[in-house]
């Protein structure tokens, strides 16, 4: 462990791209500003110099075409890793994701598959303008055929991205922009994959379970630290992938305490937290000792960056919800 290099989330993603483009010459990267500039966050910096402008491509400003062409590229034998500049702009490509990319294997009865990864940064906490922080992952859950992946740590960022690129089905790979450079951690060098549908218990505690994904995992860890000071021991479960969902891992974690708080950055109503609650109460009804609380963003449009703290879930709200749940 200790001899693994420490990387940021951003570096881990970049390393995965560098390695996989080296390993598989069908892999290509496309998107706005990903080439010469290396992307607005510089995630793809250096890729174009290394692999050339045929495989690292600056596209016109058209999200629908980026996704739609990626499907065609995959049918033609390439393995596209498309970047959408911010998840909020997948709205512009929505009709090419759920109804096209996700259904092409089904529609063609397996003749064609869409081995396409869409990378997109998302999430709040960086005071970025409208659309840029939108956490709209739940809107893709109703598009069967696509997988939804959301790492929260550097090692998972690498392992899940390599898994995504190799997955024969389309994957939405969501990058926690507030964590890009703010956390570092050991990342296994070389080939390292993390299977989809396996959650990760990142902290163990007997009193209450906090369930989250992406950047919210770190809010939960912080909350768990505060709760521990008061003698409340919280587990934190990082789902890592929403589709497929690790139902078995989730239920096993729930059964430890029978008390659950779900945390996400998207607005409360209709967020993926609702699915987590519905799944738990169906599969572990007998183990539940308190209602499952959800700590989420408010049911409003995303406000200007300077006001996002009023909107987003906070450590304080998580702590309060966990206490109320434990004391129920």
């Amino acid at each position, binding site marked *: 462990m200790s001899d693994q290099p420490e990387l940021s989330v951003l570096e881990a993603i970049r390393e995965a791209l560098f390695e996989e483009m080296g390993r598989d010459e069908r892999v290509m990267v496309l998107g706005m500003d990903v080439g010469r500039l290396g992307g607005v966050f510089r995630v793809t910096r250096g890729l174009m110099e290394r692999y050339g402008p045929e495989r690292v491509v600056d596209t016109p400003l058209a999200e629908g075409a980026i996704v739609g062409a990626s499907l065609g590229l995959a049918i*033609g034998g390439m393995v*596209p890793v498309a970047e959408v500049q911010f998840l909020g702009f997948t709205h512009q490509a929505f009709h090419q994701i759920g109804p096209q990319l996700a259904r092409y*294997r089904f529609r*063609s009865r397996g003749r064609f598959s869409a081995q396409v990864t869409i990378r997109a940064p998302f999430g709040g906490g960086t005071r970025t303008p409208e659309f840029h922080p939108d956490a709209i992952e739940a809107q893709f859950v109703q598009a069967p055929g696509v997988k939804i992946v959301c790492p929260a740590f550097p090692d998972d960022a690498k392992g899940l991205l390599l898994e995504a690129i190799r997955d024969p089905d389309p994957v939405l790979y969501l990058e926690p922009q507030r964590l890009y450079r703010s956390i570092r951690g050991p990342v296994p060098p070389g080939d390292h994959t993390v299977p989809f549908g396996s959650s990760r218990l990142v902290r163990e505690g007997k009193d209450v379970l906090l369930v989250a994904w992406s950047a919210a995992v770190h809010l939960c860890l912080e909350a768990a630290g505060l709760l521990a000071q008061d003698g409340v021991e919280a587990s934190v479960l990082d789902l890592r992938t929403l589709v*497929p969902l690790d139902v078995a891992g989730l239920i096993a974690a729930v059964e430890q305490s029978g008390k659950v708080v779900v945390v996400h950055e998207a607005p409360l109503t209709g967020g993926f937290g609702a699915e987590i609650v519905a799944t738990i109460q169906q599969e572990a009804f007998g183990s539940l000792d308190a209602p499952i609380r959800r700590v989420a963003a408010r049911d409003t449009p995303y406000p200007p960056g300077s006001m996002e703290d009023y909107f987003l879930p906070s450590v304080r709200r998580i702590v309060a919800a966990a206490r109320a749940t434990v004391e129920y």
Partner: protein
Amino acid sequence: MIELLGVDGTVRGTSPMTSKQVVDALRLMLLSRAVDDRLIKLQRMGRVGVYGPVHGQEAAVIGSAMALDPHRDWIVPASREHPAMLRHGLPLMNMFATYMGNFDAAAIPDGVRLLPRQQAIGAQLPHAAGLAWALKLRRAGGVVAVYFGEGASSEGDFHEASNLAGVMRVPLVMLLINNHYAISTPVHRQTAATELAARADGYGFPGFVVDGNDLFAVYATTLDAVNRALSGGGPTLIECRTYRIGFHNTSDNPKEYRDPAEVDEAEQRDPIERVRRFATREGIWSAAIESAALDEIRSQIETAQRQVEELPRPGAAAIFEHVYEQLSPRLEQQKAEALDDARPS
């Protein structure tokens, strides 16, 4: 507007097609019309869901398809181009299976360079641009021919795909089948442009308007575009001006929105009749040949239809196949429930 074959069957200059090609095209046109008739009949009998006929557009669809090499080129269809798909290698049975609701039997067979029909208007255009891009990147040779209607040309997908194809200079032939209607909407309500082909200019590649009821003009213009694409010249937009003589589909009744006189006039420019006249004059076609061809077509159709009818219908398990390469535990569970459910109680 590019025109070669007149309504009277005379050709301007020499025919761009060989005699064999002309005869092949004519057979395909007749097959197309017979398929229209059969599927409309089957729909009326409740054995087909919805069907949209090709009637009137045969020259545009078949003339362009004949400029392609099925072993080298790809076709990305919209939904009214099954004669092109058949010519490109789709078995007639698979085509019947499409409309008769057997989706497994409808699949594009391995090796056939065709994408499935597209029900979302215009959505196939970025796919085609991407596929052509892949051919270029892999130096695979070949071009992609993508079909779409004048209605589709109003969608954002048309624009984004065209512009991307221009920038990447991909081997793409864009076949805009302007049949003057999108369901009930006439082309003059679809756009104020006098020529849709003029849009190519705004994407940096050539555009042409052809008489879409003229087999030779469509064929020759498409062949030029294919050759341009093969030699690295990038995309071409071809607007084929034709007319949808039939209804939009079997749920539609065009009398509700268009003047029958307009249809009568279009019938005068029937794309099959002109080829028939040309071929007859050339001595490569006759009433006797046609009657034999029609017999053969009828039997092909009978066979295809029977083959589909004799197939087992896909059961509940089929909807869980090809969702992902592998089912998740949740989908496995749903599949088990569905199989249980589908069992007679």
